[in-house]
């Protein structure tokens, strides 16, 4: 890893953020609809004068270049501004919502790998058997099932009918762990609050299954195909003919190499889950970033949309950088 590479990536990141910031600023202004008119609603007693006054107070009447300048200088100084609609700073809103998204992302990813990896390996080892076909069939179902439908069905079965799991949210009232990191499972562990741990885990199960299903199917497919390719390689054949146990060949020699493309899958999955899933967050009343952003778009909350998109993009770029780093670490042939 050279310093030059690091610098190049850093410059790329900054340029990208600048381009995204300008693009999202312009796109929001081009979208029809006025944040203040929406905020005031179609209700009694809202006059054009009220709307005008509020627009002026929020700085929406300033020339566009002035508004853009304010936004960009805010980004540089780390001041993301204040939401036009919610009585909070954008930074406070992001800090409030991000842990929910991060926690769900981690658990959903764990789940998708715990399920997807062994399933993919079994399908590859038993290539073309009935088991392989059955796995691939279920896999296809997992990929194609709409997550809002799956979510509602899981709630109806496990919450409404069986009463085993909570139907919404991150915690049951009265079981919230003390706030340390905002990641509730971690907070429960840190504070040794076992009741809260059980409660937060219970709340994570259904959303994580819903979020993880499609990804576990992707993981299984990718593992299966890369395993199939590797199992046909000469060094595997050599290993087997030298008398190594088949299991050992699969586990140590094939699986390790088959895992390399998993880093890419994981990177993409993390990127997509971290930006928040609106559908999932709506169905499970999960207070994450996805709904925050979509609600902000509907309300034309310029400040919140702009800053959230920039933060999400920066996160995505950082993740892809991380994936590159991991590649060079696990595959000695790759050098940056």
């Amino acid at each position, binding site marked *: 890893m050279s310093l030059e590479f690091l610098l190049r990536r850093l410059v790329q990141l900054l340029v990208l953020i600048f381009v995204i910031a300008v693009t999202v600023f312009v796109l929001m202004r081009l979208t029809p609809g*006025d944040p203040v008119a929406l905020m005031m609603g179609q209700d009694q007693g809202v006059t054009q004068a009220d709307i005008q006054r509020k627009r002026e107070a929020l700085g929406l009447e300033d020339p566009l270049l002035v508004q853009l300048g304010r936004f960009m200088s805010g980004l540089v100084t780390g001041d993301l501004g204040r939401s036009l609609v919610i009585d909070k700073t954008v930074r406070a809103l992001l800090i409030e919502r991000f842990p929910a998204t991060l926690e769900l992302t981690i658990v959903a990813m764990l789940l998708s790998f715990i399920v997807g990896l062994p399933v993919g390996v079994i399908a590859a*080892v038993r290539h073309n058997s009935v088991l392989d076909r059955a796995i691939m069939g279920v896999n296809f179902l997992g990929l194609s099932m709409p997550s809002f439908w799956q979510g509602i069905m899981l709630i109806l079965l496990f919450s409404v009918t069986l*009463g085993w799991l909570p139907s919404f*949210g991150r915690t*049951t009232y009265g079981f919230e762990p003390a706030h340390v990191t905002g990641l509730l499972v971690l907070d429960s562990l840190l504070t040794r609050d076992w009741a809260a741990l059980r409660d937060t885990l219970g709340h994570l199960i259904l959303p994580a299954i819903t979020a993880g299903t499609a990804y576990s199917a992707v993981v299984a497919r990718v593992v299966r195909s890369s395993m199939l390719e590797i199992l046909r390689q000469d060094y595997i054949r050599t290993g087997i003919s030298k008398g190594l146990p088949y299991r050992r060949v699969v586990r140590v020699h094939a699986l390790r190499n088959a895992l390399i493309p998993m880093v890419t899958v994981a990177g993409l999955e993390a990127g997509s889950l971290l930006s928040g899933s609106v559908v999932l967050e*709506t169905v499970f009343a999960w207070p994450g970033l996805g709904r925050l952003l979509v609600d902000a778009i509907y309300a034309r909350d310029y400040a919140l949309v702009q800053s959230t998109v920039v933060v999400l993009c920066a996160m995505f770029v950082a993740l892809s950088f991380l994936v590159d780093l991991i590649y060079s670490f696990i595959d000695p042939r790759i050098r940056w």
Partner: protein
Amino acid sequence: MRFTSIRRVAGLVLAILVVAQAGLGYAQAQKTIRIALTGPIVTLDPANYRNRNTESVIRNMFDGLYTVLPDGRTVPEIAEDVTRIDDNTWEFTIREGITFHNGEALTADDVAWTFNRIVKEGAMEGQTSPRKGLMASLQEVTVVDDYTVRFHFAAPESRLSVVTAAVFMQIMPKDYFESVGVDGFIAAPVGAGPFKFVEGNYSERIVLEKYEDYWGGAPDMAGEAGPARLDRVVFEIIPDPASRLAALRAGDVDIMQGVLADQIPVIESTPGVELKTGPGTNLFFFGFNTELAPFDDPEVRRAMAYAIDYDLLVEAVYGGRADSLYGLPISANSEVQDPSLEPFHYDPELAKQMLADAGVSNLTFTIDTIGDNLLLAEAISQMLQEIGVDAQVRTWEAGALLEAVGTGSRQASVHSWGNASGDPQWPLWPVEPGYSYWHDDTFLDIMNTASNIVDNDERQAAFRRAYEIVVDQVPYVTLLVPQTVEAARSNVLNFEPHPGGRVNMHRVDLATP
């Protein structure tokens, strides 16, 4: 490898399920009610919002001078009475012995400061309150003595307008606010309502607990006066209607707001859950741009009013849970309504004839609306087909449609309009230029002057005249007012949906099992 991994995974998942289930076998704290709201709240500052969910939370923490009961009556709350000094000045007397959650007494100083913060330009920390528009022509509130304030209006105002303004703002503690500032206040709000703030996150959950020294609440409110019966109120933000219903059925919440028409049969057949309905305030209308042909011809607009099967709309779209307006601006049952004013009725033959008389044939246009009103717009489109009119429905995102209607580029649209106060002038507002693009000098004259008529009978008579003009000229076709439909678990006592859509926990109780 084989199946051992699968077995391990299955074992792990099962173990998590069992552990999680064990975690939920807890006893709820005594008398805690959980309410599923339809969306996030935006602030805890009573002066800085125009949002229903926010109102639900705020109105349980803050009381106002007057309040509206579930049956729609406006009654004194913190105020004892209001009297007219002159056309532009009204005097409120305030109950003694009321304290804020921090123990400080509520006095005239707090009332005057609260209202002045919203009616004066820039008085809300440099900004102007979005609630200013709800305050009629209120200019200033002055203190007469510790328990008397005077409201000074720029124009003559009727008792109804004065009391309505008083309903729309809750009293805040001046000294506390000034000592903590706005950020301190929204982090730890203090009011004089039945519940005090414990903790909360605008998009997830807000927890309130009983204020033991609450003064007792509006004397006219149903139920016994005194501190709240509930120990805690927990607002849970659940935006998806299907998830809200699942939470109610699973017993994870006790009250569900925002019940959809197609959920009503499920609720009615679920044991332990009850449907709660009450009058609503949201007026739905079929609007036209009266400057664009063919809607510039009143005869065509009248034909539209006769083409609509009002009763069928109520049945088919709202499952019977709506009150039809039959093209009248306000319900025929309202005391403001002139009983001699003839409502429209469904008569497709007459509608066809009217179109023919107006020389209109093969009429084609687009009805623009938002996704929430799609069923209503589609039903209207079907009805218009029966009189030979081809009206296609197009849905928009709310912000985009609002702007398009505002620029006059849309021919016809289906909209709703809020009227929480019941003031007879508000149902006429969509007719104002900017929506219908309709100009009638007599009508505009009434709209500009009648709201400032002090005598209630005279004021109502003026608006009655405006209704007559509207029914004659049909600048819009009013359709219906959906009822407020909510649901609660059977052990929730004394709970009635509020016409304004907010939830009021002042005297709600939970039956002990």
